């Protein structure tokens, strides 16, 4: 500020006033070090605060924008007869996941579970370490998915709101796949890849079937454990001309 000239002026006005101001201008090396350290701490605090804002708010803004754009493209392709289960064009997303219990509308599903994919605010189906079996293949197996719990769209944030018996609906170009949740594992090790097995034995199922598995991290804001939800295919509905959703999504 304009303090430089002010203090200089003070020095000339009287000896009594100049004493404290002179002392303030030449603090000892320890005082200086403490002052610099303090400013660095304040700076670090601000940067960390900004990082929290970035993680929990800004990444959602960016991801929702990206997801919206990609979802529009898939809907557009479907409307114009491009893509779909026959061609298995998996580049832009294969369909939409609807979980009414999570109250987050539709989630685009794309191939892969790398950060690059999931950071766009979509759910990804596993290609590694266990390859997911896609529902439109018609084969028995496990349709395993992952999405972010916080930040980057936080598409599975409310996964803990899902209860046994809740519907999970997967929408493709011409079919609605209606799953029903039959088991939940609220906490498991992040190395527990067995939850992705084609027959997920930990859920109590022993025979091959059409399963769906949702995975995300838990508790919220951390990545210590994984939260798992298992569902089983109940029925498949054909999409009509108006794309009327199945009754599970209408209530």
């Amino acid at each position, binding site marked *: 500020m304009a303090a430089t000239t002010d203090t200089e002026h003070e020095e000339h006005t009287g000896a009594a006033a100049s004493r404290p101001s002179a002392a303030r201008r030449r603090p000892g090396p320890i005082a200086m070090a403490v002052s610099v350290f303090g400013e660095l701490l304040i700076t670090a605090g601000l940067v960390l605060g900004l*990082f929290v804002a970035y993680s929990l708010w800004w990444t959602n803004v960016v991801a929702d924008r990206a997801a919206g754009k990609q979802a529009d493209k898939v809907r557009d392709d479907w409307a114009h007869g491009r893509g779909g289960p026959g061609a298995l064009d998996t580049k832009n997303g294969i369909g939409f996941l609807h979980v009414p219990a999570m109250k987050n509308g539709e989630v685009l599903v794309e191939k892969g579970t790398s950060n690059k994919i*999931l950071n766009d605010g979509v759910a990804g189906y596993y290609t590694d370490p266990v390859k997911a079996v896609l529902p439109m293949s018609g084969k028995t197996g496990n349709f395993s998915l992952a999405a972010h719990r*916080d930040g980057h769209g936080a598409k599975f944030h409310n996964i803990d709101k899902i209860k046994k018996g809740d519907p999970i609906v997967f929408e493709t170009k011409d079919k609605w796949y209606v799953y029903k949740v039959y088991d939940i594992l609220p906490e498991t090790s992040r190395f527990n890849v067995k939850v992705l097995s084609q027959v997920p034995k930990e859920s109590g199922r022993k025979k091959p079937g059409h399963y769906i598995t949702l995975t995300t991290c838990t508790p919220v804001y951390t990545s210590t454990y994984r939260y798992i939800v298992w569902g089983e295919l109940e029925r498949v509905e054909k999409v009509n001309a108006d794309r009327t959703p199945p009754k599970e999504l209408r209530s």
Partner: protein
Amino acid sequence: MGLVPWYDGRDGMYGWIWRHLPGNTWVKALISLALVVAVVYVLFQYVFPWAEPLLPFNDVTVDNQ
């Protein structure tokens, strides 16, 4: 004067920056604001996206690693 070049023994690095900005108080305030915006932009656009995968907050998949 001080132990470090940006410290003259009175009001730290932010004070040093403030005193080296040109113009009167309003101009200085405006430039400061622009600097803050620039720093936030660099952090959000480059630093945080780089740092995020290195921090253990956002892994959601089960894997073998």
